[in-house]
């Protein structure tokens, strides 16, 4: 089930899906860096970046609604920065009366908060674009080309292959627990806190043993199929002309965005 949600978009076909994964990884990282480097209040540059995100999403036939819905993931964390509105010194814009508390919002604080919010929201959308247009094995292959240590990439590859198997395993464990422990009115699943923690710990230990034993079987099965220490791919991943062009276009857009951000802020 989880597998579906991941691959539903990444296995589509479009100009963006077809690009070399290295181009997409590098362009995404540079775009997020560009967003991070934009000063507060460079609204034109932020807007332009957002337009670029939407344009890529359109070219990838993803739909803006999907991107927007997924981008809400990072929203709760935005409250980390809301304190800045009331703690940074500056001109007082409004005062919030909350019971005995009086919160003074400053313009500098509000500006900084809005900037952080814009930057994180754009960054998340960029990351979503990358994931939604690149299949996970291609992503890993790109990491290998970008000099990420082979051991790490191999571990990641194994992890992705068995992630969904183990997540299904957890779902079975959770369902079994739910079926066997009645909910009290307080919403606690039976027993004391210690008891509940122990049940969760036993489930974790059980999952560990199942995973451990599974990895042994996996290795034997792989040896039986001729595994010689590393993965091979039938996708050659060579940079074509349009890959270079896409990378050039991305760089050009980022340079313009940065320039506008400095000039018009």
């Amino acid at each position, binding site marked *: 089930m989880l597998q579906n949600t991941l691959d539903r978009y990444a296995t589509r076909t479009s100009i963006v899906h077809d690009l070399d994964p290295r181009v997409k990884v590098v362009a995404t990282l540079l775009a997020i860096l560009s967003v991070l480097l934009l000063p507060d209040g460079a609204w034109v540059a932020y807007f332009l970046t957002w337009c670029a995100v939407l344009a890529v999403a359109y070219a990838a036939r993803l739909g803006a609604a999907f991107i927007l819905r997924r981008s809400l993931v990072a929203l709760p964390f935005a409250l980390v920065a809301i304190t800045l509105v009331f703690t940074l010194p500056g001109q007082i814009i409004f005062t919030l009366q909350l019971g005995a508390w009086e919160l003074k919002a400053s313009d500098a604080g509000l500006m900084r908060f809005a900037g952080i919010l814009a930057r994180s929201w754009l960054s998340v959308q960029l990351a979503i674009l990358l994931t939604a247009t690149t299949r996970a094995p291609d992503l890993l292959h790109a990491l290998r080309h970008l000099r990420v240590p082979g051991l*790490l990439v191999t571990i990641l590859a194994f992890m992705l292959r068995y992630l969904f198997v183990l997540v299904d395993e957890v779902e079975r464990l959770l369902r079994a627990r739910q079926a066997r422990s009645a909910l009290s009115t307080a919403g606690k699943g039976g027993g004391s806190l210690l008891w509940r923690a122990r049940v969760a710990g036993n489930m974790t230990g059980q999952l560990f043993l199942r995973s451990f034993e599974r990895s042994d079987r996996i290795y034997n099965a792989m040896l039986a199929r001729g595994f010689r220490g590393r993965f091979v791919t039938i996708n050659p991943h060579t940079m074509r002309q349009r890959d270079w062009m896409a990378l050039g276009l991305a760089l050009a857009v980022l340079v313009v965005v940065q320039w506008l951000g400095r000039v018009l802020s």
Partner: protein
Amino acid sequence: MNTALLAHLWEEIVAPRMHIPDGFLSWPVALIFWVITIGLLLVAVRKTQQQLGERQIPLMGVMAAFIFAAQMINFPVAGGTSGHLLGGVLAAAMLGPWAGMLVMACVIIVQGLLFQDGGLLVMGANIFNMGLVTAALGSLYHGLAGRQSKGVRLVTAGVLAWLSVVAGALFTALELGFSGTSPFGVAVPAMLSVHVLIGIGEGLITMAALAFVMQVRPDLEAVEAVRTGGGRGWVVVGLVIALIVVVLSPIASANPDGLERVAIDMGFEKMAAAPPYELLPDYVIPFLGETPLSTILAGVIGALVVAAVAFAVGRALHRRAATA
């Protein structure tokens, strides 16, 4: 000023989350933690390759998937909150510190890369907070209690697991503070007070999981081939992290206003004397308007110093392992 109320709001909604998204750390902070993380991971890759056979590679992949999946096992604590595992100490206890670090790093990479749980440019900091710090503390499990009785081992694991969550939260809060994203006086006390409680869940689950494994497969605890390191060097690393948490936390809860100064002093001491002090303001309020050259230089110098320290530590550990 009204930091108490803000801290309360913060505690309710944000603090239980430790995956920092992009945009919340300034680029010097993100860069420094990337350098530390890459340095440590490169050492971990080398050590693991030296000490593990081909057979252990699928094991580590499956263990990373296990930690990811085990984080979904939760249990109701109180008032609608639930406890669940972070898993760093468990991973290090089962696999040894270096392999544990790699496994935890993979978990956080997948969470950030595929599920947008945590950002990409700040991933270095996320891996450090939730993977490297926790696995380093977990290495104390074998260093301190390796030959003790079952009860002592379990209690040690529980305390370390609790401490690992608090340490991760502390580093997260300090990074947010240094980035100018949240005032130290709000972030540190809020983050700590929440994770002191969340950590209890981590400790209990880790203890119970280890107890279960000890009972069902006592032979697994003795699989020495799987474990890499766990020597005296790790005890020092783990103790230093523990000390940082133990010393900083009471200061944070007792005196949130005076914390900023302390955090800057201690934080930068801990980051191995990063950039010169006169450049500090650039860290607290990064690039409003033009990016000053001094900030860039400070970031680069800091990164280089930290990289040097990371490699020196790696070298020292390597030599120690070679002589042992």
